[in-house]
């Protein structure tokens, strides 16, 4: 479920070493993009820690069962500061997408198109997440397609982190 899937047909694998970004096997996009900044007491820390452990962890109001994403300090439905972090199945449906052809970051300068997907999690109140759709960057993207999460570990980063990527199921 992790980086061994990655590489084949990703924009990063085609990037070579000509750009400012560093192409590394196992990453969808080259290194050099902004990385997640988190730490103790950060609102997002449970999510990023979960991703390190290949778990998808999101916020839920224990009083009402209402999920919320991105995380907030307060529950939007009851204004309670008492919020749970719960594990949800790492899968969903493609809700929307774009294929980016005109990159704006130096690390992406020589990278071909790449796909951004918005994924809806129907089993978690329909919350949505953003990631890359793995595989051929020129693939046809169909809204409603089932996807599952791939945990992209960046163990070689100064502060190791894990991105949550998506691939079509089946």
């Amino acid at each position: 479920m992790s980086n061994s899937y990655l590489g084949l047909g990703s924009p990063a694998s085609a990037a070579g070493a000509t750009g400012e970004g560093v192409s590394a096997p196992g990453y969808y996009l080259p290194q050099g993009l902004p990385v997640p900044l988190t730490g103790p007491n950060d609102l997002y820390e449970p999510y990023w820690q979960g991703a390190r452990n290949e778990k998808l962890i999101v916020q839920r109001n224990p009083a009402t069962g209402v999920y919320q994403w991105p995380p907030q300090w307060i529950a939007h439905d009851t204004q309670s500061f008492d919020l749970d972090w719960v594990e949800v199945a790492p899968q969903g449906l493609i809700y929307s997408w774009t294929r980016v052809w005109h990159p704006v970051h130096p690390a992406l300068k020589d990278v071909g198109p790449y796909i951004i997907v918005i994924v809806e999690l129907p089993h978690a109140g329909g919350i949505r997440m953003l990631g890359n759709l793995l595989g051929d960057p020129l693939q046809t993207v169909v809204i409603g397609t089932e996807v599952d999460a791939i945990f992209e570990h960046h163990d070689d980063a100064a502060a190791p982190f894990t991105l949550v990527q998506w691939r079509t199921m089946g």
Partner: protein
Amino acid sequence: MNDRSLRGKVAVAGVGETTYYRHSQAPEPEFMLCLKAILAACGDAGIDPRDIDGFASYSDDRNTPMALSAALGTHDLRFANMQWGGGGGGVAGALANASAAIVSGLADCVVVYRALAQGQFGRFGQGAQFPAVPGEYALALSYGPMAPAQFFAPKVTRFMHEHDVGQGALRAIAMTSYHHAQANPRAVMYGKPLTEEKYDESRWIAEPFHLYDCCMENDGAAAIILVSAERARDLKQTPTFILGAAMGAAPRASGSPTTIFATPDYPSSYFKPVAKRLYAMAQVGPQDVDVVQCYENFTGGVLMSLVEHGFFEPEEAMDFLRLENLIAPTGKLPLNTSGGNLAECYMHGLGLQIEAVRQVRGQSTSQVPDVNISLAVGGPMSPPVSTILYGSEASL
């Protein structure tokens, strides 16, 4: 009907613009551009610049009321206001705030302004150049969306998917702006017409946006001076009255462009509740609107904004959004008659507001006959979004 309304109480006394330049091409600093636009508006209105007693802007404009009032020799500074939010979402909101200040007696003569010199201060279309990012930024930037087109594209894709809207609708919006820019010597794209073939063959920026679906980036400045309706009637120009204004967003709309995907009502311009308030204050409906200036950092925003201002159902978009329906003087809903952000100048929508005023005055380079009701929309990418209706004396 109570009197908590802007309707007919405030009017545009003057409008002013600098030359509009391609980005980074302005020969003068941004503050100088700002001063020149304000002075041009004073000249248009026949007002002594020192009599401006209020300053209102949006999108974190760098030219502060204190700097401007000190430079201009303002006699009596009474109002200084910033509308929260980035981009052009707040442009009509700034005009609403200025109007509210006049109606409430906080100020008598307020200038709304926006100035941009990207060579001096940096480009909008460039990505975040930080090694690490916190909070909601990491949910997006680490995956590659970094520029406005990339943040906004999936929202438009979802809207087009839900309502079966094709690329031709976006193309018609782009064609309309370029068509009108060919009659407007102020327009940066004056003399550079767009054809359907040229649009179709242009490169993708981020699907569904071709190059021509994206606004320019420009340098320049623009200003609008507002006074009470009574005072405007004694000034040089035929007054253009504020009929109504409104601002807002969808419930739980994301506060950051990086996470707009989380907004519950995602495929929306956020104008559903806002346009309702606008029409209620103005006491008109979409059927009364003679001409529309609709903010287009990207064409897809116009598509959604026009739907949510009630001009057509989303399923009718492919029929409605055709060049012949959108061009002055004969189209049934003339749109972006100066060339707008795509082809006149990207002054975060203040140029569109000035064009809405010109249409009421009868001074547009693509004039619609007998305009009484003129709509100008700000947004929809950066909430709070805002929208305003201008009217002629006859509309009151």
